[in-house]
């Protein structure tokens, strides 16, 4: 997963409404109407959130023209090898920065 994908995933998840939508979809697919029901929010507003989740590859829309059910996408949330790789890349970045911070602290210690 490249940085753009990781960033899209973070953005998708950094919103309580979107997290709630994912929690609902974890129990099974749903229509936009069903997803909108618990929130004081219009369907177009929910659809905006769904677009963000779709772009991050976290949900997909069925092809049934009438209903277009929304479901959790197996991709980013469902493949063991891919998961570890995402997580690893994130923390490798963090720890590389921590290396730099520690190098500075050592230099200060020596002076």
């Amino acid at each position: 997963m490249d940085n753009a994908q990781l960033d899209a995933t973070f953005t998708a998840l950094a919103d309580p409404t979107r997290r709630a939508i994912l929690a609902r979809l974890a129990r099974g697919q749903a229509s936009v109407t069903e997803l909108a029901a618990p929130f004081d929010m219009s369907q177009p507003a929910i659809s905006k959130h769904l677009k963000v989740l779709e772009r991050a590859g976290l949900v997909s829309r069925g092809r049934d023209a009438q209903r277009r059910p929304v479901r959790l996408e197996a991709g980013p949330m469902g493949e063991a090898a891919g998961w570890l790789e995402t997580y690893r890349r994130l923390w490798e970045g963090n720890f590389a920065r921590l290396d730099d911070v520690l190098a500075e602290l050592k230099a200060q210690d020596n002076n």
Partner: protein
Amino acid sequence: MAHDLDVETPNDLEIHLIRRFDALPRLVFEALTRPDLVRRWLLGPDGWSMPVCEIDLRVGGAYHYRWRNDESGQEFGFVGEFKEIEPFGRIVNSERPDDQDGGDSLVINLIEAEGSGTKLTLIQQFETKALRDMVLATGMAGGVARSYERLDEVLVETA
């Protein structure tokens, strides 16, 4: 020198990160607990900064982290309390998104001297396998994943 990062899942509920550093445990502990230092490395993907980094480093003390996507303005944050602090050795704290009450995960940082350097083991403990797996999938810390379950519970109650 950049050491290798080990990511392990020794059981269904935990993620272990193991990473070595060319610095003494005292300095690693400092970099993990001083806000001015933490905000320089605990950032996640490129493009995210850390506008809030508050740490009250004592048992029972709280911390608050907040990250921001510099381009979109999207923000999210974590809070938690320190359960155990062993200077230069061990830090145990709870963790949850800052927009919810309760639903904590547990984070353990083990800092051990190894030769002239340090071995850091970061352990995250979750309440369910599903949450642990979601964290792995998204790269986010346990608190966000935990919020799914709480919101799911709320949705079930209000259905």
